[in-house]
């Protein structure tokens, strides 16, 4: 049948309508952490370039990276990378068609949140 109402259909409710759920929050966090990690990638590349450029420039960049602000950024990046790492593993598991029922999905969500905090603490203690 011809679609006479093309482009003028009622829209389904979106994010601002639904109550936040663990599955949606952990999914959004995956996107935020993944894209925010570009900051860490830029800092690391800048630091490597500075190391290759010579001692004077390295001292400047190394000083910025190791300042309290640099350390705060790297602490955030460590948590972000571990969260994105665990969420990525969860994605690969989902993609295999498993773990998609609500109880399992919620358990995996909590595992991503808890696991990322534990891995961050371990990383900070070791390094």
């Amino acid at each position: 049948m011809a679609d006479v109402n093309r482009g003028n259909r009622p829209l389904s409710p979106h994010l601002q309508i639904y109550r936040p759920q663990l599955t949606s929050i952990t999914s959004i966090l995956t996107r935020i952490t993944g894209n925010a990690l570009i900051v860490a990638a830029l800092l690391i590349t800048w630091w490597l370039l500075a190391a290759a450029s010579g001692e004077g420039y390295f001292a400047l960049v190394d000083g910025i990276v190791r300042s309290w602000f640099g350390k705060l950024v790297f602490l955030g990046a460590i948590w972000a990378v571990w969260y994105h790492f665990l969420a990525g593993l969860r994605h690969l598991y989902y993609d295999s068609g498993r773990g998609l029922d609500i109880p399992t999905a919620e358990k995996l969500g909590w595992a991503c949140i808890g696991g990322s905090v534990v891995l961050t603490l371990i990383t900070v203690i070791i390094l």
Partner: protein
Amino acid sequence: MAFLTDRKRAQGLGSAKTGTEHFWGMQVSSAALAVLIPIFVFTFGAILGAPHDEVVAYFARPFPAILTGLTLVVGMTHFKNGAQVMIEDYAHGAARKWLIIGVICLSYAVMATGLFALVKLAL
């Protein structure tokens, strides 16, 4: 008002033809990063904070240099494809195209800069 039937609108267009390789590419790079990232965090973390001569000597060794190069290239490829999906969700029209072009340029620029630095450090 559209007078064409749904079938008429779709006829001759064929299947979507593309799309699965983007998903597959993300799966490949994520599997690679699942191995690379934990090793990289501790390899890079071990040298961060050391004096300049130690940093240069560290990246002259094959393992830290190759691992860092691999993580940069695979990581930025993963970022390029992942950020593109985010842009496609939120931006439309010309803005979408410019943002995707920008992300691709940035990704390759970071790769090239990092590899140049590593080569200079290693040689």
